[in-house]
């Protein structure tokens, strides 16, 4: 077993990987940092309390009836300055004709919101009755937040990036250094060489997926509503499909520069179109069939379906089919085109 060429080749992949500390660091840290950054940026904040001011005790008292306003009382000569410097969003002042003047910046959303809340509080304090009573139903459960949408997208993007860059770079590097030529000058069956890349990706898969997934589950409490087996299966198919894309990209090129160019050319459109950060439904209907046929769209749709809506094997079949087609076509082409020297 330990003398099998496939075992030794995979061992070489592992040694090259773990002995490159930077690569190890970035491949682990990057998805976490991205998820953490975006998670913080789009976290659900408690409803914000707006700072407002009034120049008379009576107006201040009326405004305090509204829980979402933090009210201070100001001498009249300071009111203009406080609004201008943003210390308060709005100042309420009595006008000489008995009406109320709201001093605020109408280009600032906070100002407009304060205007609505302040006016409502003052009108109610003076006896206005609501025509109909409204009741709130707050939607804040896991599964419908941005972070729940984002984590499956990041997992899909991670699988794509690692599976394309990893084998692609190793192959071009081995070809450039003539190591590949030396290895195929031995009796080892050539397909072992390519298989070792797929095998190594499979070994790394629990880390590629596990790190961002565990981060999402434990830090943001994202749900895992579908079967874990189905989730694992879609990740395996996706890794094989993207590795095949990587092998195809690396099948002929001789320089790292050419390889990076081709890799970016294939990945960047998918980052944009496949709905990693925002729903791909935003693109015109005309291009939807193309977007649906992209491997990254397939894996992200499947992951979201599984994690957020509890989709099982049957519901993910169309996406699995798309990924399977990419795998077969790209691997077949790569085998045909591959330059072994």
């Amino acid at each position, binding site marked *: 077993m330990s003398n099998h060429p496939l075992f*030794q080749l995979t061992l070489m992949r592992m040694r*090259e990987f773990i002995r490159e500390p930077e690569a190890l660091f970035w491949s682990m840290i990057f998805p976490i940092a991205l998820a953490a950054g975006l998670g913080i940026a789009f976290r659900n904040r408690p409803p914000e309390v707006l700072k407002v001011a009034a120049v008379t005790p009576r107006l201040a008292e009326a405004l305090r009836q509204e829980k979402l306003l933090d009210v201070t009382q100001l001498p009249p000569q300071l009111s203009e300055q406080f609004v201008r410097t943003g210390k308060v969003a709005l100042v309420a002042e009595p006008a000489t004709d008995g009406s109320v003047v709201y001093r605020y910046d109408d280009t600032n959303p906070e100002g407009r919101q304060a205007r609505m809340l302040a006016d409502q509080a003052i009108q109610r304090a003076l006896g206005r009755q609501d025509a109909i009573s409204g009741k709130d139903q707050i939607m804040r459960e896991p599964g419908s937040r941005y972070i729940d949408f984002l984590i499956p997208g990041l997992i899909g993007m991670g699988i794509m990036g690692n599976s394309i860059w990893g084998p692609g770079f190793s192959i071009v590097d081995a070809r450039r*250094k003539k*190591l590949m*030529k030396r290895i*195929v000058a*031995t*009796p080892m069956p050539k397909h072992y060489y390519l298989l070792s890349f797929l095998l190594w990706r499979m070994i790394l898969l629990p880390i590629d997926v596990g790190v961002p997934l565990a981060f999402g589950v434990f830090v943001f409490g994202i749900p895992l509503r579908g079967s874990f087996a189905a989730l694992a299966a879609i990740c395996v198919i996706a890794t094989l499909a993207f590795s095949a894309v990587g092998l195809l990209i690396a099948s002929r090129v001789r320089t790292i520069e050419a390889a990076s160019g081709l890799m970016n050319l294939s990945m960047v459109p998918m980052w944009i179109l496949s709905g990693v950060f925002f729903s791909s439904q935003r693109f015109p209907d005309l291009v939807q069939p193309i977007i649906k046929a992209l491997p990254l769209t397939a894996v992200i749709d499947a992951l979201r379906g599984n994690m957020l809506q509890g989709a099982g094997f049957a519901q993910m079949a169309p996406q699995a089919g798309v990924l399977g087609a990419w795998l077969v076509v790209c691997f077949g082409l790569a085998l045909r085109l591959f330059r072994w*020297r």
Partner: protein
Amino acid sequence: MPAKAALRVRNLRKTYKDVVAVDGIDLDILAGECFGLLGPNGAGKTTTIEICEGLTEADSGEVEVLGLHWKSDASALREKLGIQLQETQLAEKLTVFETLRLFRSFFRQGPGAEDAIRIVQLEEKRDARVGGLSGGQKQRLALACALVGDPDLLFLDEPTTGLDPQARRQLWDLIEEFKAAGRTILLTTHYMEEAERLCGRVAIMDHGKVIAQGTPRELIASIGVEHVVEFSVGNAMPDMAGIGAMAGVRDVRTENGSVLLQVTELHKAVPGLLDELGRQGIPLTELRTHSATLEDVFVHLTGRHLRDE
């Protein structure tokens, strides 16, 4: 028992775009001999050896390796050959032992990684990363990688190019041990000392053709010159016709301000030269003699030096 052919090449041709790399070559390498392909860069040595190694396909011609053919017996052949390519960079992050373990796993039989390390004397570097080895150590590791399949035929493509003199001598010692162990070796080189020292027979290549073939001794004898006398006379102009007419002098050439005489009898030519220059009243600033080498054979055949680029 007549030695049987380890490698037989007939009328081999290979053209790259508009360059004829190999232009109709015949070679016969016998089991147990160390055969050298000697020639300048671009002579077609690497193309020839890589066709024999099954890495490059010839346009036409016949190659029979150990009685087998690449078309029909490739996998059997791969088990029997040890190959060192020109300028292969092995995986830098692996250790010497790990590299040999990897290559050993590609072959059905052969010495273990530890044995291979001992053969090329890299015991001290067993657990060192390949990236940290010196040029000579890397070449010895490449040699070990060629040995792990216990090959019947060893192909070495410029095994000492780019090495310092000490590392080169160390590698020569190793190759001489392989010879003593009865291995069949085909090596390419553009160092004539290397070919003279290591190879039982040599084929001199130039522009894709074999221009001479034989033992180094035969080749040197074939130009009918045993010694070369080289001298300089500062700015003076000696009478070349007079010098050329001296007893035992076969040829006179000037090169970089020096005069080169190809002579058969050193003990007559040198005193004759001194007398002649004395008669012409020309002071000698430099005088050197050496026995004729393969370099002189190459110069004799092509008018150029092996290392001329």
